């Protein structure tokens, strides 16, 4: 058993739903208890789909368990067939149905449907959502893909090479726009896209997959298993580079040109702004910003490269919840001299972020909330995401336009050079005082009395170690918050063997902009402790600053 408050991934049948929902004429009959239909709203609300996911649930209840749940499944499959008339059907069990051991595959076979039926074995107690999506797509390919004719008839031979795009699915982070961006990119190179799958693909499209010259794997978490199978079966090569970031996009272009024998374009297209933006002087302040990266494997590995080579950040930590790609992420970590954290426990991520105190976090929805609690700037780079990360506007992550989007998205939460300069220059000014939040982070501006408390209250940091969940406080009422703050602050003061701050040093600390104040406080205390200093003075503060300055 594993204690979980938050899960990065859903169960594997949600992955299967992502594939079924992405496609146009596949129906999924899912043996599942009443209540599992909750997953529909991920698609109708987060992705804002204007239609119901093509999933029929058996929704068995306790009273059905004594009777014939197998019959219930067969009825559901028959009715789904009659009502939705799909071109292929997926059948499978959710976690509970897995325990009651009806066999959806066998039961569906007994119905003798006239369409292909793909039985899914998704072990819910071992695997998760991305694996479920990958397995579903792989099984669909195995059942559906036709062997292409040995020699293409002369008239069907195309002048331009063709490829498929594999991996995009429903509920995928920016999949819609990535497909558009990469399709344009390939077209400009002289490559035609034959089939995009599973997103918007029909059964007939999947049947034709083997006819293209090569495959583009955009999301290895979902598309790699199918691509590898296609390579084994039909000698169809696939691309290994995911075109996330300017450098990777250029590598991707080179890879495609090698595969197809097409000439490589001499220069980037005119819309490739990110490279120049990163070179412009206002970006100088981004140099060496300490960044922490967490998400699915593909986006983390790519983000680390962009952060380090294209933005000039320092990668101080990275990790992923994608156990299937742990090796790739660990290798990536080694390149930046950090040990990758492979976990699906967000508390471990939070602990690591806490210890590292990065200046920017790139992560999922969960890291966004960790960052908010700790007052650290953050940008979302990977699923799971909330509704705001399925934007109405064009917002790819891949290709050159994707690189532009990434530059804006990552830099926005940071202080830009000019603003940071102004705050340094006018830090005593009422508009730029230490408690002032950056203008674009207005909502994180602490209330006036809280600022005073931060500046005058003695050392709140040990509280974090003595009370495991100080963050529960904001969820309570205001009075409770005040109470608990007072309660925890007092013992922390008494129990701590740490140095105390002199009033002058405390005041000086208050002059440091709030977004680095936590780090300064921490560093100074560590410095004082190492040296056995009892009272932190202004001198100690600046000694520590000199000691830690990079």
């Amino acid at each position, binding site marked *: *058993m*594993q204690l979980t*408050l938050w899960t990065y991934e859903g169960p594997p049948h949600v992955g299967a739903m992502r594939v079924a929902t992405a496609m146009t004429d596949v129906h999924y009959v899912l043996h599942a*208890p009443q*209540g599992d239909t909750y997953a529909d709203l991920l698609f109708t609300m987060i992705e804002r789909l204007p239609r119901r996911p093509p999933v029929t649930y*058996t929704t068995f209840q306790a009273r059905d368990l004594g009777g014939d749940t197998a019959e219930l499944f067969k009825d559901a499959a028959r009715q789904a067939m009659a009502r939705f008339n799909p071109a292929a059907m997926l059948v499978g069990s959710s976690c509970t149905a897995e325990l009651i051991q009806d066999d959806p595959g066998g039961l569906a076979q007994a119905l003798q449907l006239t369409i292909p039926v793909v039985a899914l074995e998704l072990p819910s*107690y071992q695997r998760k959502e991305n694996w479920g999506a990958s397995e579903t797509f792989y099984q669909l390919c195995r059942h559906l893909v036709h062997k292409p004719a040995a020699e293409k008839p002369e008239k069907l031979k195309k002048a331009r090479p063709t490829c498929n795009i594999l991996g995009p699915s429903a509920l995928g982070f920016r999949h819609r726009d990535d497909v558009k961006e990469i399709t344009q990119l390939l077209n400009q190179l002289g490559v035609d896209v034959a089939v995009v799958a599973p997103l918007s693909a029909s059964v007939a499209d999947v049947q034709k997959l083997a006819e293209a010259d090569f495959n583009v794997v955009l999301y290895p978490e979902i598309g790699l298993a199918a691509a590898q199978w296609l390579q084994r079966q039909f000698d169809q090569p696939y691309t290994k580079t995911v075109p996330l970031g300017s450098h990777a996009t250029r590598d991707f272009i080179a890879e495609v040109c090698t595969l197809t024998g097409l000439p490589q374009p001499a220069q980037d297209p005119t819309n490739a702004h990110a490279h120049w933006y990163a070179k412009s002087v206002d970006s100088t302040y981004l140099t060496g910003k300490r960044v922490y990266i967490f998400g699915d494997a593909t986006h983390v590995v790519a983000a680390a490269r962009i952060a380090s080579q294209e933005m000039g950040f320092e990668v101080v930590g990275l990790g992923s919840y994608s156990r299937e790609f742990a090796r790739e992420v660990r290798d990536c970590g080694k390149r930046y001299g950090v040990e990758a954290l492979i976990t699906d426990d967000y508390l471990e991520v939070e602990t690591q972020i806490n210890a590292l105190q990065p200046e920017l976090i790139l992560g999922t929805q969960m890291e966004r*909330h960790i960052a908010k609690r700790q007052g650290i700037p953050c940008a979302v780079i990977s699923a799971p995401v909330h509704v705001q990360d399925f934007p109405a506007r064009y917002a790819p992550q891949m290709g050159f336009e994707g690189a532009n989007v990434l530059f804006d998205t990552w830099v926005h939460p940071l202080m830009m050079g000019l603003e940071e300069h102004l705050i340094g220059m006018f830090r005593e000014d009422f508009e730029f005082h230490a408690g002032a939040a950056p203008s674009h982070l207005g909502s994180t501006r602490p209330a006036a009395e809280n600022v005073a408390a931060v500046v005058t209250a003695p050392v709140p940091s040990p509280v974090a170690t003595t009370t495991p969940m100080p963050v*529960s406080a904001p969820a309570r009422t205001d009075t409770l918050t005040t109470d608990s703050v007072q309660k925890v602050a007092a013992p922390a003061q008494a129990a701590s063997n740490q140095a105390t701050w002199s009033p002058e040093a405390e005041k000086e600390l208050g002059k440091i902009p709030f977004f680095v104040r936590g780090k300064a406080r921490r560093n100074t205390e560590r410095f004082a402790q190492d040296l056995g200093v009892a009272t932190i003075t202004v001198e100690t503060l600046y000694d520590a600053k000199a000691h830690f300055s990079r």
Partner: protein
Amino acid sequence: MPIRAETSGCTDVVPLVERGQREVFCGLTGIIWLHRKIQDAFFLVVGSRTCAHLIQSAAGVMIFAEPRFGTAIIDERDLAGLADVHEELDRVVGQLLARRPDIRLLFLVGSCPSEVIKLDLSRAAERQNQIHHPKVRVLNYSGSGIETTFTQGEDACLAAMVPGLPASAPDTAPALMVVGTLADVVEDQMRSLFDRMGLQVSFFPPRNSQAMPVVGPNTRYLLAQPFLADTARALQSRGAQHLAAPFPLGVEGMTAWLQAAATEFGVAPEVFEQATAAPRQRAEKALAVQRQMLQGQRIFFFPDSQLEIPLARFVHRELGMDLVEVGTPYLHRQHMAAELALIPAGTRISEGQDVDLQLDRCIADAPDLVVCGLGLANPLEAQGITTKWAIELVFTPIQGYEQAADLAGLFSRPLKRRLKLAA
């Protein structure tokens, strides 16, 4: 008061009973509002990743406030042999309570997987009780989809608490208890209204597990929520007596609900009038504005929370809406009797669901407003049908006089929006 008079009610209605795919939440979802109410309780679901994912999806951003609920995810090793599961649970509960020393009441919440593998959570709760006594009390109930639909999770939770409620002294005067989770603001308003009538009242569930209300043969209870069949039965077995009443939705419902208590405790009519007149008039005035928008609009309820029948009564009688179909996941005749009497005869009432057939009916009926879950709302909107998502009716304070117009506003807003965007 401009309330529609009907010649006869719907008391003897034969509902359309359907079985098929049900597009509803399971009882685990109840945790999301229950944990907000009982401030020192933690809800530990024993289930699968699906359960954790469900609560996370339903709780939205609330999960990030380090909420007092979580899931002990069953894995392969647990499925291999039952003996080991109890030790695993010991470990997980120990880990949890070490993290959250402020927890005084822990619920082990059963799920479909735990029910199907016949994990004995009541024995597990007993065992945890022995380990963590007296600091933490451990109870169990099932919120599984195979046994409970959405709000029935609250019913199961409250019913599990009833046997542990302290017994009232046998010779005390009859006392009033209000049963069902209400927003704190609603509870405070109700308390003040009862105060003005000179009635002492306790609320169940309480805001803190250390302040459980007493119960006994002198307890008279009012149900504030319609989905509390098992809780009512458990209270009955402790000797408490149910006061039949409509539910406190809208001016009419709230007045009749208060009146049931006033009658039982012999509150003088003029005292009742004095206590309720001002808020009642205020609410009627506010409702009149909403009625202009909603009068004559045809409304269709998909089953969700068992609140549908009281809501249908409110929108029909106080807002002048016409009822096309009123779906409920479960129809408790006795608790719904006072409500059914106020629903116009001939109203199509359905119990249970076959979602595809119900969608066919809905589209054929072309109602002006459809109350349904989030899985159906956007797909229906895309077909040109205006919807109100049902779950909001459970999370928003809607009971009592001061909220009557807010409740009406939940129905009028989507219609207003449609008009605005069309213009």
